[in-house]
């Protein structure tokens, strides 16, 4: 079995059993291609178990995060059907290693997107937009990882909750948002934090997905990137995101 396959199985098992593992590549020696190959092989395991691929998530969508990780591009992960969480449902912390949550803007595509798209083409492919909450949960001990580590680990993506799909013709470049826990607002921000304009994230998503041989298709969901810092999940929380013009969504957390 190849090293890539071994790493992939290890991460898949870590995610499935909600157990932390040691970093694969703490010295960052792996190429990004190898890291993405591990991610693909790891997601393959889920698809074999009957999950479907439903979209992608974008990560490091701010200059601050990119420079912190020593990269000048966004990273991405795959969304599968098993990661969908119903709005207003309850999640169990036992299913995760050490989960955090962050607010996102979600795109629903009405049309396929090729590798090279202009933002105008990306705009016309959007069927709907929605506020969303992404649960990120690194499989690495203490949430510590190198750049190849996090890419191999599906960019920490673990679950997502999407609110009501709204009209994509509104100007969503600067929608205010507030993420609250049991009614207490903890993180506020704007969709402008996503690469200065979330459409840039969708253009990057089209490029990266096509380069990986899995171009974006009609019906795919793209989570454009975290709009604020992430917050740890704790039992007893009701997590809620409110977004200007697009409404709100939430979920509950238990042990």
């Amino acid at each position: 079995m190849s090293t890539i396959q071994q790493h992939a199985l290890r991460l898949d098992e870590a995610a499935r059993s909600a157990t932390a593992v040691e970093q694969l590549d703490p010295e960052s020696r792996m190429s990004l291609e190898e890291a993405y190959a591990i991610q693909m092989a790891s997601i393959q395991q889920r698809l074999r178990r009957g999950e479907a691929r439903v979209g992608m998530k974008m990560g490091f969508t701010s200059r601050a995060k990119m420079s912190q990780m020593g990269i000048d591009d966004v990273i991405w992960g795959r969304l599968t059907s098993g990661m969908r969480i119903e709005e207003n449902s309850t999640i169990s912390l036992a299913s995760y290693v050490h989960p955090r949550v962050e607010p996102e803007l979600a795109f629903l595509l009405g049309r396929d997107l090729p590798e090279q798209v202009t933002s105008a083409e990306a705009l016309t492919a959007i069927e709907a937009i929605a506020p969303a909450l992404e649960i990120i949960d690194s499989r690495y001990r203490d949430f510590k990882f190198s750049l190849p580590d996090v890419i191999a680990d599906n960019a920490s993506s673990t679950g997502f909750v999407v609110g009501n799909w709204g009209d994509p013709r509104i100007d969503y470049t600067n929608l205010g948002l507030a993420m609250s826990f049991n009614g207490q607002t903890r993180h506020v921000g704007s969709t402008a934090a996503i690469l200065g304009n979330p459409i840039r994230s969708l253009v990057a998503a089209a490029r990266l997905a096509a380069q990986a041989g899995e171009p974006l298709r009609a019906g795919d969901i793209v989570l454009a990137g975290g709009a604020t810092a992430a917050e740890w999940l704790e039992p007893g929380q009701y997590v809620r995101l409110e977004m200007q013009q697009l409404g709100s969504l939430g979920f509950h957390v238990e042990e």
Partner: protein
Amino acid sequence: MNREIIMKPESLQLAAQQLRDAATSGDFIAPLRERFEGLDIEAAYAIQQHNTEARLAAGHRIVGRKIGLTSRVVQAQLGVDQPDYGALFDDMGYGNGEPIPWARLQQPKVEAEVAFVLGQDLAMVNPTQVDVLRAIDHAVAALEVVGSRIADWNIGIIDTIADNASSGVYVLGSTPRRLEDLDLDLCGMVMERRGEPVSVGVGRACLGNPLNAVVWLARKMAKLGQPLKAGDLVLSGALGPMVPVQPGDVIEARINGLGSVQAVFQLSANDEVSA
């Protein structure tokens, strides 16, 4: 350390004088809270009042107020649970995109805010949310260029109150809006330098809602017998983190529903304002 008894009028005057001198000389001073014993919030406002009177005596007039310390994060950093206020004078305002002379500024930082212009006095006893809603004529996007006469911005609440709530100058946008057209709770804010977001935020970041800040100020000023009046400008408080600026910077802020506002900083103190 040479400590003084703050309650003496001459100590208040001395502190006020030191702040004025620092503003003109650019030699910023050590925190007042470390040098004047017994300096409390009331005394700090008394120091501010000394310098307000000095400006009025020099022929200036008050055109409104600014509210500071409206962010829960900043309040926690300073260990306080209340906002503060300062006076806005006639010579502090700059037009949208109008170059701001660097020499006007002291350790400048910029923050994006909702500015309100009042159409009615708020002279009643303990103004309510309804009174404030009715009194506001319109809102406009604003960039406040705060400054500090305290070296390295080493401020506590006492220092900033005495220093006119760390006010500097401000720039107003040019697309005023009525309240019914706005979502003051969830309006997104982004501030950019050369197209790169340097600060983002939302209406709720200002005391839960910018209107809460105005109600607080209206009550405070009514109680002090200096009520807010029709025509007054109120800078209600930052919607996101403040950002230090350098000579030559151009900062643009957009507040969703309120349009944009641009602050242009001159390259250096010696720069001529180009026509």
